[in-house]
C-alpha cells in the first residue's frame, strides 16, 4: 500500500483581505435574495454593496445562512415538529462569536490549511 505525502499550503495562502471574487459576489447576491424572504427579526443590517473582501463576504454568508436555518427551526418548533438541523449548530454562530486577531491569524497560519 502506498502512502502519499500531501504538502500543506504555505501560511501566505490565507488572505481574508483578498478582494471578493465573482463567485462569492454571486453567492452574496443569492443570499441577499433569500434574506429578503426572512422574517425581519432574522435579517442582517449589512449593506452588501459595501462587501469588498473575502473575510467580509464570509461574515455576511455566515450570518444569513445561520438565519435561514434558525428561521426554519423556529417555524418547525411552532408546528410542533422536531426537525433537527445540524448544520446550523456547527460553528458557534451567534452573538458570542469572536474575531481572530491578526497576530493569532499569523500564528495559526503556520499550522496548515485547517488550523485548529
Amino acid at each position, binding site marked *: 500500500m502506498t*502512502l502519499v505525502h500531501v504538502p500543506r499550503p504555505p501560511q501566505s495562502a490565507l488572505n481574508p483581505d483578498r478582494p471578493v471574487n465573482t463567485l462569492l459576489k*454571486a453567492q452574496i447576491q443569492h443570499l441577499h435574495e433569500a434574506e429578503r424572504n426572512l422574517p425581519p427579526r432574522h435579517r442582517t443590517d449589512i449593506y452588501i454593496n459595501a462587501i469588498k473582501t473575502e473575510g467580509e463576504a464570509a461574515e455576511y454568508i455566515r450570518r444569513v445562512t445561520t438565519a435561514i436555518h434558525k428561521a426554519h427551526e423556529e417555524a418547525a418548533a411552532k408546528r410542533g415538529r422536531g426537525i433537527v438541523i445540524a448544520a446550523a449548530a456547527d460553528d458557534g454562530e451567534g452573538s458570542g462569536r469572536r474575531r481572530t486577531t491578526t497576530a493569532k491569524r499569523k500564528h495559526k497560519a503556520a499550522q496548515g490549511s485547517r488550523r485548529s
Partner: protein
Amino acid sequence: MPPGLDNLRHIVVLMMENRSFDHMLGSLTAVNPQIDGITDQLGNPDTTGALIKPQPLAQFQGQLDPDPDHHFPAVDLQIFGGDTSPNRVANMQGFVKSYFNQQKDVGHSQKIMYYFAQNQLPVLTTLALEFAVFNRWFASIPGPTICNRAFAHYGTSFGRVDMNLLYINEPFKSIYDRLISANPKHTAKLYYYDTTSSTMEITNLLENQPELFGTYQQFLNDCSTGNLPDYSFIEPNFSDHDSDSGEEVASDQHPDHNIQAGELFIASVYNAIKQNPNLWQSTALLVVYDEHGGIYDHVVPPACTPDQFTASANDTGTGQSFAFDRLGVRVPAILISPWIPKGTVVDGRVFDHASIPATITKFFLGDYSPRSPRETSADVFIEPNVQPVDPARNLLSLAAMRTDCPDFDV
C-alpha cells in the same frame, strides 16, 4: 451481479471549482498515453500571432490573477477562437486571446496555457492513475459556476447560462427531493464546508429545505459512525475565513485560491471514506470540477441533446441564443472505488454534470420522470444494480476488492 455493484450502497460527489482537465491532469499523458492530455502538437495563438504551447509552469497561487473570465461570451471566444460566423467550427484557439482581454498584457495572457506537473498534484494525479479517470467529462454549459452546478442538482439549469439562477417551482425536482420522497425512501445530503462557506445552491434548496444540508464536520462524523446517506454531495470551502477552530483556507481551488489546500481537502474526503472499512467497500466517490474557469483545454466540447429551455441572445451576451445543445469545456473527473481496476481510463463515452442526477436516479430509483432532456440523454457513470449489467460499461468490475489502494498522509 458484479460484487462491486452488489456491495454499492453510497455514492459521494465532491465538486471542486474552475480548473480544466489539461491544466490539472494533462501531464499524465506522459505516464499513460491513454489519458488524453498535453502533447507537443497543442497550442494557442496570442494576440501577436505567436504560437503559445502548454507548459508545466502552473503555480499553486498568484498566477491566475485576475480570475480568468469564464462567463458565456468569454467561453464562446475560448472555444471558437473569435469566429462568430454562422458556420463556424470550434477549435479551442481563443484562450490566450480571451485572457488578454482582461489585462491587455501579452505575457500575462500566456499563463492561461500553463498546466501542473504531476508531482505538484500528488492527490489528484494519484487518484487519476489509481482509479478511473474520464477522458470526456465536460462542464454542462460553456459558462460559469452556478448554472453548471445546477446540472449536478437538477439535470438542467432551467435556461440560465449565468449566475442569476433564481428559480423556484420549476418542473424538475432536485436529485435530493427525488430520493427522500421515493418509496422506499432513500437518504441524501448536501454537505457544505461550514455555515461561513455555505452553499452555492441557495435560492431553492437552502432557502426552502435547509434540513437537506450538513457541514463537512458532519460528513466526517457520518463516515466514522457509518451513517453516510445513500447520496452525498460535498462542497469545498469557498473562502478564506475565521472559524471557532481557527483559520480556514479556501479549498475550492477557484483561482486565485491555493491549489494545495484543495489537494488536502480531496485527500481528506477520500481518507474519511477509506478509514471506515465497511464504508470503503460500499461507496463510490466521484471527484469532479464544475467548469474550466477560463483555463486552456484542447478537446472540443461536443454537441449534445438540446434542453427544453433556450437562453436568449440577451442572456448569452453573444448576440446569439443558446439551446443548450453544446457542452462546456472539459474538466477533471475521477471515479474512486476499491472495485475499480487500477489505471482505468474511461474513453469513448461522453459525460457532463447531468450524468450525476442521471446516475443517482438510475442506480437508486430506476425509471423516473419528469427529467430534463439533457439528463434523460446523459450517460451514467455507475450502472444500475439490476441484471443484466453490460460488463464493458461497469467500472466497478473487479471480482475481488483491491487491497493496494493508496493512503494519503494528511
